[in-house]
């Protein structure tokens, strides 16, 4: 990690100009100690968070949820219902905070925008030929512009994993830069799809590449491949955003997505954020959970804390 802190700020902004410079920089990043990262993640997962701390963690986690539906079977009615749930996750309890954002496909953005307008809940849309990212650049950019025009204020793009794995870093970099430009004022989340990157070293490189190219958030996964967010992968990404801020002064957010289903899992992530990058990132502006079923578990745990009685899924909406 020391290699990054020694880089001068001016060097980093120049990197994107040449394939060689980019490759030299990315391959010069220190390798990830796989055993160490996994052990550290497992160790942080053993912390016990109870009573008032747990109540605070649950409310924070609810505010960090990107309530997501990315199905071929999504309908305007379904996404409107989901948006209503985002505004008032627990209708029985007005003290329950709203979620961070709703995340849908571009064609569903207008329907969600109607519901969320003026509420403070962000509207995220996946774009750039999600989930594979295998489409010509013009089509990906048109996808992004359409989503932004329809009212999305956050765009979740996928990187071109084929190009990344083949070592064509400039191509990936240029695509992110172009997408960022197409986003205008919308926030750009860059999905690395870590399940397809094979090694932690690649995750670290992809994280840096996405941040150098201007991503506002780095996100683990699409949720469409078998291996989604894991604690060690998120740890590597958190280290990357920490080092990136130390090197450039710019703060980038992190979003683990996919496979986070229980309150226990969510709290493990929050512990890891606090211990790795500190309280600066413990806010919905800098850390999000991409999830759908997680919210109901958070609500059930919240109900347990307020009523003292274990809640059941029959009393929460199906979505």
């Amino acid at each position, binding site marked *: 990690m020391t290699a990054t802190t020694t880089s001068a700020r001016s060097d980093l902004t120049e990197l994107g100009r040449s394939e060689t410079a980019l490759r030299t920089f990315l391959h010069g990043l220190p390798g990830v100690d796989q055993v160490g990262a996994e052990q550290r993640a497992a160790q942080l997962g053993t912390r016990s968070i109870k009573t008032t701390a747990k109540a605070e963690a649950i409310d924070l986690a609810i505010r960090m949820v990107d309530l997501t539906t990315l199905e071929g079977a999504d309908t305007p009615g379904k996404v409107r219902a989901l948006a209503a749930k985002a505004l008032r996750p627990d209708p029985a309890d007005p003290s329950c905070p709203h979620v961070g954002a709703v995340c849908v496909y571009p064609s569903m953005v207008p329907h969600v925008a109607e519901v969320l307008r003026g509420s403070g809940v962000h509207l995220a849309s996946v774009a750039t030929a999600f989930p594979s990212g295998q489409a010509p650049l013009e089509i990906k950019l048109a996808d992004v512009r359409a989503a932004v025009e329809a009212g999305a204020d956050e765009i979740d793009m996928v990187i071109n994993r084929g190009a990344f794995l083949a070592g064509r870093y400039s191509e990936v970099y240029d695509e992110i830069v172009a997408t960022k430009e197409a986003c205008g004022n919308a926030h750009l989340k860059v999905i690395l799809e870590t399940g397809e990157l094979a090694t932690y070293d690649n995750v670290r490189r992809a994280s840096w590449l996405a941040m150098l190219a201007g991503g506002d958030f780095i996100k683990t996964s699409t949720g469409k491949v078998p291996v989604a967010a894991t604690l060690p992968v998120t740890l590597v990404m958190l280290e990357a955003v920490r080092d990136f801020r130390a090197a450039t002064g710019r703060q980038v957010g992190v979003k683990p997505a996919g496979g986070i289903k229980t309150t226990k899992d969510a709290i493990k992530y929050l512990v890891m954020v606090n211990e790795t990058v500190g309280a600066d990132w413990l806010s919905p502006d800098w850390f999000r959970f991409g999830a759908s079923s997680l919210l109901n578990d958070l609500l059930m745990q919240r109900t347990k804390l307020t009523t*003292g*009685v*274990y*809640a*059941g*899924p*029959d*009393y929460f909406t199906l979505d």
Partner: protein
Amino acid sequence: MSERVAVRKTYKLFIGGKFPRSESGRSYLVQSANVSLASRKDARDAVVAARAAVKGWAGATAYNRGQILYRVAEMLEGRREQFVALGLPADEVDAAIDRWVWYAGWSDKLSQVYGGANPVAGPYFNLSAPEPTGVVAAVAPEEPALLGLVSVIAPAIVSGNTVVVAASPVAPLAAVTLAEVLATSDLPGGVVNILTGRLAETVPTLAAHMDVNAIDLTGVADAELAADLEIRAAENLKRVLRPAPADHDWHADPGITRMTTLLETKTVWHPKGV
């Protein structure tokens, strides 16, 4: 050659088809053995396991459920001596096996006896069919340890419910040994979950749990606790089986009330004629 040291058994809980220790790590000394002392969280975990098993068990055919329950009786018969060695009277063990077989036979007969066609004044078939209520929490009586336990578990699961049962706190070894029988009888994991320990610790949690559909208070001897449990159960309208009277004869014909209390009746109207 040195004398052989016998291997002593650790008596653990039975949750989701597995034998975990109590999440709390506690145990208590009873019947000259260390037995897990279940906590609230163990009760919660057991409900999660029971809920997960409902779909498969309730969805299995009545014939299939019956076959599995007969298989349990076969395994019980094979372990007869083991139960007797725990200090249970031989006639109680025999009665427990017979009771199990008796309930197993009900699996494909219950809906015929308790459901059927209803006469209606119109051109419709009107049919009522009993369906399992879902997750049942049950408190086994203190005595008889095995016959009483079988008499609360079998009527709950024969119709497709899954059950979380709090075993007799004073004689839990029969329950843990029964768990070993169930684990080797093709019974899907989670259909029966057994908690050992203090009733006052686990049962109120089960009675208040919103994801439990019915509670069987048979083994609750303390009238005050029973009343408190019924009040807790009212929150989500659980079906309730009241505590058994102290002089209840467990060897007598049990009747079908224990089964029918844990059912929901579904009635369908279907047009006929045309």
